[in-house]
């Protein structure tokens, strides 16, 4: 117990960085996932093929491998920029890798949402003279987002826990802090594991509560 109290600042710093990873990677995943799903349901065969290929490659690759790959690839391509000492090169790399990985799952959650919308909604939109883009943005996606809230919540919960993989390329997030403490306090490991588990559970609980709120909001307006 004492180890958690003594190192509270370090633990908190770790979880704050975890939350930053979650926020930025989550935003990338949402934007990229929405673009991907538009590709996947597009009337143009080439675009569908591009979307499907992305899903097949990214979803089928272990996250750790993607993080390592980006960690190795970016310096080769000459990209090693840091925005600040806090948002450093490894943080940016991990954020992009996590975001691109989660985007594949966001895309599929949204596609499940789109599939749950009756085909008549799209037919009505097209009959009014809407283009594919207009029909997607004003009729299909707003409804698909609502239907996709439960699978999206699962995706974001998985992403919150997957941020721990960033420790592999040296991002000082929560799992990194846990590893550090485990090395320093060999006798306090049960408490250390317990403390970090509680931290992740709180984050996941917040995501679930947010999703629940969104669902209730969406339920009112229909």
């Amino acid at each position, binding site marked *: 117990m004492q180890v958690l109290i003594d190192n509270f600042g370090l633990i908190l710093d770790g979880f704050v960085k975890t939350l930053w990873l979650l926020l930025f990677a989550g935003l990338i995943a949402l934007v990229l996932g929405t673009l991907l799903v538009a590709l996947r349901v597009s*009337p143009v065969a080439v675009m569908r093929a591009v979307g499907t290929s992305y899903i097949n490659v990214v979803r089928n690759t272990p996250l750790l491998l993607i993080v390592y790959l980006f960690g190795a690839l970016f310096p080769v391509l000459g990209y090693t920029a840091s925005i600040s000492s806090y948002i450093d090169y490894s943080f940016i790399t991990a954020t992009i890798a996590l975001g691109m990985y989660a985007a594949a799952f966001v895309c599929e959650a949204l596609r499940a949402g789109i599939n749950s919308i*009756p085909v*008549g*909604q799209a*037919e*009505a*939109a*097209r*009959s*009014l*003279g*809407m*283009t594919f883009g*207009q029909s997607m943005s*004003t*009729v299909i996606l*707003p*409804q698909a987002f*609502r239907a996709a809230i439960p699978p999206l919540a699962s995706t974001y919960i998985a992403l919150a826990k997957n941020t721990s993989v960033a420790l592999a390329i040296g991002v000082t997030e929560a799992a990194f802090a846990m590893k550090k403490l485990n090395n320093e306090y060999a006798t306090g490991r049960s408490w250390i594991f317990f403390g970090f588990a509680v931290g992740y559970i709180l984050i996941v609980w917040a995501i679930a509560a947010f999703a629940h709120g969104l669902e209730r909001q969406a339920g009112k*307006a*229909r």
Partner: protein
Amino acid sequence: MSDVQTRDSPDRTDSNLVSLRQVDKWFGDLHVLQDINLDIARGEVVVVIGPSGSGKSTLCRTINRLEPIDKGEITLDGQPLPQEGKELARLRAEVGMVFQSFNLFAHKTVLDNVMLGPTKVRKRGASEVKQQAMQLLERVGVEAQANKYPAQLSGGQQQRVAIARALAMQPKVMLFDEPTSALDPEMIAEVLDVMVGLARDGMTMVVVTHEMGFARTAANRVIFMDEGKIVEEETPEEFFTNPKSDRAKDFLGKILKH
């Protein structure tokens, strides 16, 4: 019934608004439309009837290319229907469509449903569109429901909103794909009343329906389809009192028996 005689008979040869030439369509092995030739004049009301599976809904849906055809040509106001894309979207904006299952946008209020086409597709100003939308809702008798969501309305009300939504685009022609088939009997009349009003106002209409009363009251022409072919094409009076084909006699015998 006397309406058929009193209505001005539109001149079919002068200006065909919709024209189908040797149209064929297959669903897999099923030859669902077989060599369809059909001309619809401006202001004409054409009722398409026939047993289920006869291709009448498919025929209706080919006119705004919700169903692409495999052979032949469809022209709308002289223009052939383009391939999927912006050109087709522009053409579809000129064609109103009313579905069996209403298909109102479930996440939008009744008023927003009616305003969406004019604001998004025609890019018109919201205040002007709103005024016109309210007038249309009044015309179909659901103005009191303007701020409700579709799920809060009865089927008959939803279908009348769907008609208002299509009219908001000021279409050249309205397609009705079995507009009353999903409705309770007491709601059918309120929808048909709106449609009869439209017909009187001179709207060009293609109506797939089983409502023989509507066909007699409002139609200029009845098209009887069976197994993907147009079997008979007559005035309602002639078709109902003196059907020529055995298939039509058999069909009318079955539906008019009760």
